[in-house]
């Protein structure tokens, strides 16, 4: 049974031309990387460094993706991440002030994670409530709450970095599975799998797409549109708070203005991943590929020390425009056919 579903979903995956094209871009990119920067390419540290970086905005992009699928958007993810990170850092400091013993530290760690996720979910639900119940356009709601959450973060922290966390937190977040796979990557993979199951293996996922496709019809079909919307923004908030925890680990501190460039980056990723900004369509695989493509590209770029970092947005934007052009040019679907035999032979 499972064999059938996997082979079918694989076929379907490669039927999505957009995903195919992103995959081709990634393959070309990796080949280029391997040929031009062989030494870096085969160095484990290169990949570990990437694996620590992209989960931060990758997790936010997952949330933005869900809200975009239901026809909304979430510009507040960075605000939620910073607010929850500062909140939980403050909480950790109060439970286990500097010099506390290790059990105390682990207690603080658990409390902080729980607190972060809870506040993230609440903040997301607040967005959802304003969108679904008060019926303010999502872009305005989340722009407003971005300011609001960032404002709360500034108020709690007095604008200063909150640091001096119990060492247990840093240890856990910096630990590596089998001594190789960094924690942030594990968190990202787990989150991706959970979201994947949610999107493709539960009724909730199907309903999300339906809601994004036609809200009136969803209402008439008896879907609880209000609750669906609230839950979607809630998940987005939850993911943002996980991103906040990852950032808290990566920087061993939290601050109201960390990751200020991630909002547009997350949207860029989601859109590059093929999610329709009007809602109703888009695939998780596309978004994941987009995250990886951008990260590989930017790390590749960094191996050329003399190319300024400012070329990064140029290249990211260029990739996005290129995908648009290729999608148009490749209406006949050559690329997909190239890939498809892999799917159908199974």
């Amino acid at each position: 049974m499972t064999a059938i579903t996997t082979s079918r979903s694989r076929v379907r995956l490669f039927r999505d031309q957009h995903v195919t094209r992103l995959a081709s871009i990634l393959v070309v990119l990796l080949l280029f990387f391997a040929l031009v920067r062989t030494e870096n390419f085969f160095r484990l540290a290169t990949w570990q460094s990437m694996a620590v970086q992209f989960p931060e905005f990758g997790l936010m992009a997952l949330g933005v993706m869900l809200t975009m699928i239901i026809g909304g958007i979430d510009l507040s993810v960075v605000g939620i991440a910073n607010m929850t990170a500062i909140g939980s850092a403050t909480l950790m400091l109060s439970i286990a002030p500097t010099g506390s013993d290790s059990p105390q530290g682990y207690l603080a760690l658990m409390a902080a994670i729980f607190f972060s996720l809870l506040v993230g979910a609440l903040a997301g639900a607040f967005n959802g409530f304003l969108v679904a119940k008060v019926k303010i356009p999502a872009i305005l709601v989340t722009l407003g709450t971005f300011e609001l959450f960032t404002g709360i973060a500034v108020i709690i922290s007095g604008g200063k970095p909150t640091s001096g966390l119990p060492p247990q937190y840093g240890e856990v977040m910096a630990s590596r599975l089998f001594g190789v796979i960094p924690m942030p990557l594990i968190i990202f993979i787990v989150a991706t799998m959970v979201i994947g199951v949610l999107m493709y293996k539960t009724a909730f996922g199907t309903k999300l797409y339906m809601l994004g496709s036609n809200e009136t019809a969803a209402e008439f079909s008896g879907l609880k549109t209000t609750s669906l919307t609230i839950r979607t923004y809630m998940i987005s908030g939850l993911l943002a708070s996980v991103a906040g925890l990852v950032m808290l680990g990566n920087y061993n501190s939290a601050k109201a203005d960390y990751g200020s460039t991630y909002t547009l980056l997350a949207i860029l990723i989601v859109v590059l991943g093929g999610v329709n900004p009007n809602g109703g369509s888009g695939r998780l695989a596309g978004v994941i590929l987009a995250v990886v493509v951008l990260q590989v590209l930017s790390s590749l770029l960094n191996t050329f020390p003399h190319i300024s970092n400012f070329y990064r947005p140029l290249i990211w934007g260029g990739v996005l425009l290129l995908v648009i052009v290729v999608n148009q040019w490749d209406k006949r679907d050559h690329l997909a056919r190239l890939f498809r035999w892999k799917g159908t032979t199974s």
Partner: protein
Amino acid sequence: MVDNVIAVRGVSKAFAGVQALDTISLEIAPGEIHCLAGENGSGKSTLIKVISGVHAADEGTIELNGKEFSKLTPMEAISNGVQVIYQDFSVFPNLTVMENLALTAELAEHRTFVNWRRMRRIATEAIAKINVKIDLDAKVGQLSVAQKQLVAIARALMSDARLIIMDEPTTALTKREVDALFGIILDLKSRGIATLFVSHKLEEVFEISERFTIIRNGKHVITCLPEELDHKKFSFFMTGREFDDARFTPQIRATQPILETSRLSAHGAFSDVNLSLRPGEILGITGLLGSGRTELALALFGSLKSDSGEIRIDGKAVVLDSVRTAISHGIGYVPEDRLTEGLFLERSIGSNIVISEIDSFVSSLGVLEQDKADAEAQRWITDLRIATPDAQNAVSTLSGGNQQRIVLAKWLATKPRVLILNGPTVGVDIGSKHDIHRVLRELAAEGLAVIVISDDIPEVIQNCNRVLVMNAGRIVSELDPTQTSELELATLMSKDVQTLEGIS
């Protein structure tokens, strides 16, 4: 051939894998009223798009005004007197009636600046031509479907058209409006303007057409005069099948009504509605647009709040405050406008069918059992003969008739006890229409209580065992269709309320 407005010669057109048109030829004389008929997906709309320059034909030519085109652009079509009234009307919902009417004229004259006074004058004249009253300053998006169409028609008539093409112009019009439209068409004829139109309503086709062209699977079947055909033959040419037109007789097993209302009222929509429905019945509700029929349906489906009165299900009073409550009481609703209210166009056929019952495919672990859902969808695809190669295809790839079956399937899949259908066969060809009616009858026979809201009088008379006529928000009479002629029904629907006051 002399003096054709248009001559289509051997036009073919294929879309990825589908031969939509296969060497079709068609000629229309000035002033001729020509009907294009065929099943859903037979290629009518495609032919129209080729004639109006929207699609380029793969093969064949089109002659307009004596000029031969193999690749026609929309502007060339318009400047040669071809005007199309599209199925979606192609109006601007955000602009006023006046602008909708006048903008095209301003454009046609290649004006750089618009003059609002001139636009008002143009619009007033245009509306006057079709002899209806529409507020020129109203936003078109706020008009009813019928009014939108009138705007579209008025706009098409403004230019120097020699051929007006209407793709299913009467689907959303009431009898009275259809009569008005036919008056206009005849008036055009007298001015030498030809009309090509598509309709799935046989009565109308026979009433107005001077010549038919029937196509099937993109191929030309026959072009002939109305005298050479009757309804039966006509249907046969279209579908290659034969139909019987037996009337519906209910098998009512329970005497206890499943759904009742007493003195149900909603402010500004309907008032004092009393009705009762038993399992196995098909109750018709008919009335003109704006008579309150849709609002009544919405109230019974929990989507519109009623102010006073009572709804009873199985004899117990209930408050239907949301769609979900209604669904939980076993009520289903097939909405009037399937595109905006019924379907998730870019989603798959399968998920469109199972969406309302999707929670029942969730295992105890919370995982969606996709194979069960797929099987359910496949069952309905087979049962309702939905023509698709793959349930994974988007609903937007289907024609109207098949789309309507999807909406029907969605509701049947929830195993409702009461099914309310609002305009169930609008824009659906006779083959599909017959299939849908057959399904409804079978369901009623199995004990489903059905309400059919329709202003398609033959449909109501043939398929219902009781008919309620609504007029200005009230039920003005209840009829036995076996005792009522189509004419009587039409008269009741459109009579002014004052004269009816005494009767009811």
